[in-house]
């Protein structure tokens, strides 16, 4: 028996507009570009909906209707769900219809497509919870298998998932950690006792995601028959072929004229043609197979580049500076308890912002290796840091305002107390009340000072 476990990752960030130094303190809207450029979030979602989400979902729905054995997984960032709701509600509905078949599983994720696990565990946990609640309310299902932003993974993340009740977690099946072993089995993360890790078969995944339309590639043009044969070849040396890729591979990264839609349409039938081959969701996969060994990943592993690490996001000085500045704001922004400020801060945590600042390989002139809506990594950094500077000001203002409010509360108290009370209270109880108020003021002032 060999099963295929596909997962398509659906995501769009809130790109920061060309936010200038002069805008700091004057403009609270960072994500509302309305130009014709690729910084216009609404325009991008509408464009990708037309090129990818709508046609692909139509095909996927047909496939589910035609092939009762067909199954796959989806993962969504909260930021893409929010944008579907605002700019393309029909797309969200078509995803809901897919999930309603019961054969499409949704994976757990961070709400804001962030790298929070590596910077702030409490914030990571808040985002995972927020994501779960959002998935439950939109789709009526609770995720049981975890995938982290950019497929980033480390032993301690697997441990966290195990401790929090997840059955499985996804990771890159990388040679450095696999050695001679195959990604087509389940493994036990080092330091864990029950959770299983599903490893991406990067060869077969990237044949679709990266190479499909590349005419220089020896495999071009790739036919579904050929591809199914490559999958079938793993009979006997594997149990599950895990195909992990961006959902936008269909129609956006690989355009319709590459034949990607016809390929997708034909794939389940060609895979199922061999009798002992089928599809499984992630949960079915972890429940069907035992682990055959340990997967020990002490350093961060991702699905990016040939380095398979975080250097595309935090490899250079400006990236490290920007992400550190973002997480330094955590205590203060959380203390404001202002949901709008907190949400804005979280939108700035989305990993794409840091990716746009990447300068890897740019010395070789290979600037196109990284897609970015900005003209240069430095433009991306400037827009981001300016927006973050404005947020810092707003957080400081909110914190200061809370202090002022509390102080005036304290001054107002004797009057309120006198108004409400007919009998002179005991001195002790007045003192007690004032002590509490002063303690609260102290806490808030100390936060202001420390920021």
């Amino acid at each position, binding site marked *: 028996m060999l099963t295929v476990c596909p997962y398509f990752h659906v995501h769009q960030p809130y790109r920061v507009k060309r936010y200038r*130094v002069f805008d700091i303190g004057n403009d609270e809207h960072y994500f509302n570009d309305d130009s014709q450029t690729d910084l216009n979030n609404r325009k991008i979602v509408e464009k990708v909906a037309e090129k990818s989400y709508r046609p692909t979902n139509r095909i996927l729905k047909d496939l589910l209707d035609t092939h009762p054995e067909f199954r796959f997984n989806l993962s969504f960032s909260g930021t893409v769900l929010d944008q579907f709701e605002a700019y393309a509600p029909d797309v969200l509905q078509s995803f809901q219809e897919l999930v309603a078949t019961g054969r499409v599983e949704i994976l757990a994720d961070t709400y804001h497509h962030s790298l929070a696990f590596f910077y702030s565990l409490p914030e990571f946990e808040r985002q995972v919870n927020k994501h779960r609640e959002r998935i439950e309310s939109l789709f009526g299902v609770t995720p049981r298998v975890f995938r982290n932003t950019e497929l980033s993974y480390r032993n301690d993340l697997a441990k966290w998932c195990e401790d929090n009740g997840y059955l499985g977690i996804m990771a890159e099946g990388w040679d450095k950690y696999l050695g001679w072993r195959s990604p087509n089995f389940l493994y036990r993360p080092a330091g864990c006792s029950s959770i299983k890790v599903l490893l991406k078969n990067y060869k077969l995944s990237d044949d679709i995601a990266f190479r499909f339309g590349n005419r220089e590639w020896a495999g071009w043009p790739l036919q579904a028959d050929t591809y199914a044969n490559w999958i079938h070849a793993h009979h006997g040396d594997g149990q599950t072929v895990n195909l992990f890729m961006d959902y936008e591979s269909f129609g956006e990264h690989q355009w319709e004229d590459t034949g990607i839609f016809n390929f997708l349409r034909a794939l389940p039938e060609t895979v199922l043609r061999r009798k002992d081959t089928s599809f499984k969701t992630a949960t079915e996969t972890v429940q069907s197979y035992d682990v055959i060994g340990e997967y020990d990943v002490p350093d961060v592993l991702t699905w990016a580049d040939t380095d398979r690490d975080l250097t595309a996001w935090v490899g250079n000085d400006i990236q490290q500076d920007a992400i550190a500045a973002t997480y330094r704001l955590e205590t203060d922004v959380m203390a404001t308890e202002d949901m709008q400020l907190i949400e804005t801060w979280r939108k700035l945590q989305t990993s794409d912002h840091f990716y746009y600042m990447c300068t890897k390989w740019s*010395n070789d002139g290979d600037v196109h290796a990284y897609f970015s809506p900005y003209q240069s990594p430095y433009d991306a950094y400037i827009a981001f*840091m300016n927006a973050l500077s404005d947020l810092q000001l707003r957080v400081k203002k909110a914190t200061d305002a809370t202090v002022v409010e509390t102080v005036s509360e304290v001054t107002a108290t004797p009057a309120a107390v006198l108004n409400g009370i007919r009998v002179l209270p005991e001195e002790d109880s007045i003192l007690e009340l004032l002590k509490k108020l002063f303690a609260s003021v102290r806490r808030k002032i100390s936060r202001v000072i420390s920021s």
Partner: protein
Amino acid sequence: MKVLTFGWEFPPSKNGGLGVACYGLTRELLEAGVEVVFVLPRSQKTLGNAKFLFAEFGELVSVRHTDITLEPYLQSDSKVEVFVGYTPDGRPMYVSRSILEEVHRFAHQASIIAKQEQFDVIHAHDWTSYLAGVAAKKASGKPLILHVHATSFDQAGGMNVDPAVYRIETEAFAFADQVVTVSGYTKNMIIEHHHVPETKVSVVHNGCDTHEPPRLQPTLAELKAQGRKIVLYHGRISIQKGVDYFVKAARRVVDADPTVVFVISGWGDMLQQVIEQVGAMRLSEHVRFAGALWEEERDRMYQSVDLVVMPSVSEPFGLVPLEAMLHGTPSLISKQSGVSEVLTHVLKVDFWDTEEMANQILASLRYPVMRSQLVKEGKQQLAGLSWRSAAEKIKAIYQRLLQYAT
């Protein structure tokens, strides 16, 4: 392989990029085994120093001098004083001539030299040498390469193009076997304006020297001590260089942050206009004119400022950001420059977008991590932009032109 080269200036002459480029290319061509005869108009400055610079290659290079003295970057009708000899009582005698006359005299000399010298290929740098190159080709029948360091369209900032220079360019390009431009930017310009067929034009980006310069005693110490940030313009002060846009951006910057100081270092025909503009925009307290800085003084300035801006309206290549980077200071450069094709680690802006120019100036001053990364990663990139690789491309062009020569 032997090349007869015509050029206008040679280090350590202080006229800017052309001489530096001629020196860098010649040095590396010699290294690559190409024999170079470099013909220069007569100039005391160039005469003594050129020999000094080539001392180590004395057996290979002979510097020839014609009897012409010219200043580059002049309009064709500019007058120049030319030394022609001595009066009977021993006083030097000068004649005032137009640059166009000088260019033709240079061409006349070139034709004589071309008959005397043995060589395989002719290489002429900049418009003032084009006619010399053409004359040498006519005299010898050898293939001709014209090397475009700038065009009449750059010099004029796109307006009031000198028709005489434009005519020389167009006719010489038509006569050349190959035209080399210092950037894709300039290649597009001569395809568009001079109608040169695209296949006849090769891009050879200028190189740069990448030795680590010594750290010098800082300048503008009193400003630094006050914690003020300093932004530098360094270069000729002419329409082509966009200094007026730099001043407009300065106004916007100072409105947002009055502690920023702007330094303008250079000399040129627009200096008076820029000084008046600074006054009219009430920027006198924020803009300092440093005069023309050369050598160590220039390097001290590069090392002491926080950001260098090259706001050129039209820049065929642009050495300033490379020099600044070498001295550890990042640059903001106009997109209308050839050097922006080869540099990733600089800030880039359209010269006319002074609002964005001001934004990027302020941002670079606010975020020191970005400034240090621009320099750190920029220096790594500089290592790949050597005169050696430029000379290799030139040598390949010589070889291509000579492949059927007998």
